[in-house]
């Protein structure tokens, strides 16, 4: 009898915890969206920010966020996937592997501000990339690399050994087995991980504060020559991203509609994170189905 009552109580407590979590999460999401969605309009999304007048938008910031994200992904995905493959397939248990693993963990759990400071020191000043898209992307690479490494390693480890044996037993080289059999099979889970990590990159601010800068030149969206200083594609121009914008507007914005802009930007950010998640799920499902042939 006694153990049954304990059981009831304990399980209820767990359910209460989960309910509390759900409540916190849902009310937060709701709060951001409810407060922010009313300020989102086509105008808001397609107008540049105004230095001090009301009615500014977030066009440049939104573009910058995506641009920094894309550059970061271009830098991290190939390296991260290779690193993950190393750990999953080539690393022999030993000191070196353990050290590399520690490095991955170190990179993954560095405070973002430390990464920002490092980026400022090395990319901005030492290499002279200035406050720029490129410096920002390099700093974000530091964060994102370990995430991709882990995702890849997990993806590979989740594959059954059978497939690998199948490949090797057919006289395929190890690398070829990885390339033609294991990587495609692990692809869905890697992709899901990459898209989920995109959410974090999209929302990072502290590190970008010190590396990508707090401003954006007057972008000319008609000029796609990457070497032009006002081109949206220029890698070496400063780029305030959306989440940095939220921070800076909230900190020192003198436009009358500071609150509206901050709320709207937050809602846009959250909506994009939601979209990334949805994409991850759907793509994962579709690709999984394709691979399993159902």
């Amino acid at each position: 009898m006694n153990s049954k009552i304990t059981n009831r109580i304990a399980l209820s407590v767990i359910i209460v915890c989960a309910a509390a979590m759900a409540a916190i999460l849902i009310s937060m999401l709701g709060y951001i969206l409810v407060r922010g969605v009313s300020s989102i309009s086509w105008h808001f999304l397609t107008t540049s920010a105004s230095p001090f007048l009301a009615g500014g938008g977030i066009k440049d910031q939104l573009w910058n966020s995506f641009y920094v994200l894309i550059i970061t992904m271009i830098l991290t995905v190939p390296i991260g996937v290779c690193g993950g493959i190393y750990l999953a397939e080539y690393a022999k248990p030993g000191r070196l592997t353990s050290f590399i693993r520690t490095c991955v963990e170190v990179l993954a759990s560095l405070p973002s501000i430390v990464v920002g400071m490092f980026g400022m020191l090395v990319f901005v000043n030492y290499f002279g990339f200035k406050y720029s898209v490129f410096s920002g992307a390099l700093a974000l690479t530091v964060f994102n690399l370990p995430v991709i490494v882990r995702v890849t390693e997990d993806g590979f480890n989740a594959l059954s050994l059978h497939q690998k044996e199948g490949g090797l037993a057919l006289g395929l080289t190890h690398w070829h087995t990885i390339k033609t059999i294991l990587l495609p099979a692990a692809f869905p889970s890697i992709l899901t991980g990459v898209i989920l990590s995109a959410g974090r990159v999209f929302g990072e601010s502290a590190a970008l504060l010190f590396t990508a800068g707090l401003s954006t030149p007057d972008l000319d969206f008609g000029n796609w020559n990457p070497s032009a200083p006002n081109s949206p594609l220029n890698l070496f121009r400063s780029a305030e991203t959306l989440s940095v914008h939220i921070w800076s507007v909230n900190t020192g914005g003198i436009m009358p509609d500071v609150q509206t802009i901050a709320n709207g930007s937050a809602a846009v950010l959250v909506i994009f994170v939601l979209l990334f998640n949805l994409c991850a799920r759907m793509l994962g499902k579709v690709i999984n189905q394709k691979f399993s042939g159902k």
Partner: protein
Amino acid sequence: MEKNIVSFTNNTVTKELPIQINVENVNIFYGDNHAVKDVNLPIHEKSITALIGPSGCGKSTFLRTVNRMNDLIPSARCEGTISYKDVNILNPKLDVVQLRKEIGMVFQQPNPFPKSISENIQLPLRFAGVRNKKTLKDATEDCLKQVGLWDEVKDRLDRSATSLSGGQQQRLCIARALALKPDVILLDEPTSALDPVSSSKIEELLLELKNSYTIIIVTHNMQQAARIADYTAFFYQGELIEFGQTRTLFTNPEKQSTSDYISGRFG
């Protein structure tokens, strides 16, 4: 067993066949675990050799050493000589990739690649450098016909191999192993994950394949060994207890433990 229903009709070893692979003093270790102890064994060309023995006796370990699949296990270590075509398979300098093209392997769990049926057959060929579309297509048809799968799948070669049933998958894996025209095929309990009907199809297939290939099969089903193998090797606790023509080994075992095992006193 009260009845003797097993017939030895397939084990028609009338004359000794030439030796394809010769195993001499092979010892295999996993770290400190001495898994296979001092095994000497001839594998005859174009015949089926069955490896039997209780669980954990080292059958799989031994089999996987023949095409060096055990290289994948970092702790595994191997001593001795396995002669094949004048080379020692255990030579560390050996080109294992090439070796595995000549000594194919089929596993307990069917492991088709999550790709289309035809790609499963073509992948090894492509890797071996075959580019010609026609050659690839012909080879696909040829291999699938050899395992009797052609008629069942010819209309859906582009469908994913994972959509096949377990038995079909296993035959596909055998077909895949045949694509490279190996000399030897190793099979590790290829039927134990299958239903009886699929199993017997594969047994028939093996009997046919032995006309062109040397086959080594691990099985825990003694009836299966009795039905299809020309030679049988009985392993026990890492040692090769007895080896001989299947009929002799089953009807007139030399060792008490062989007799105990095949009569089901343990295992």
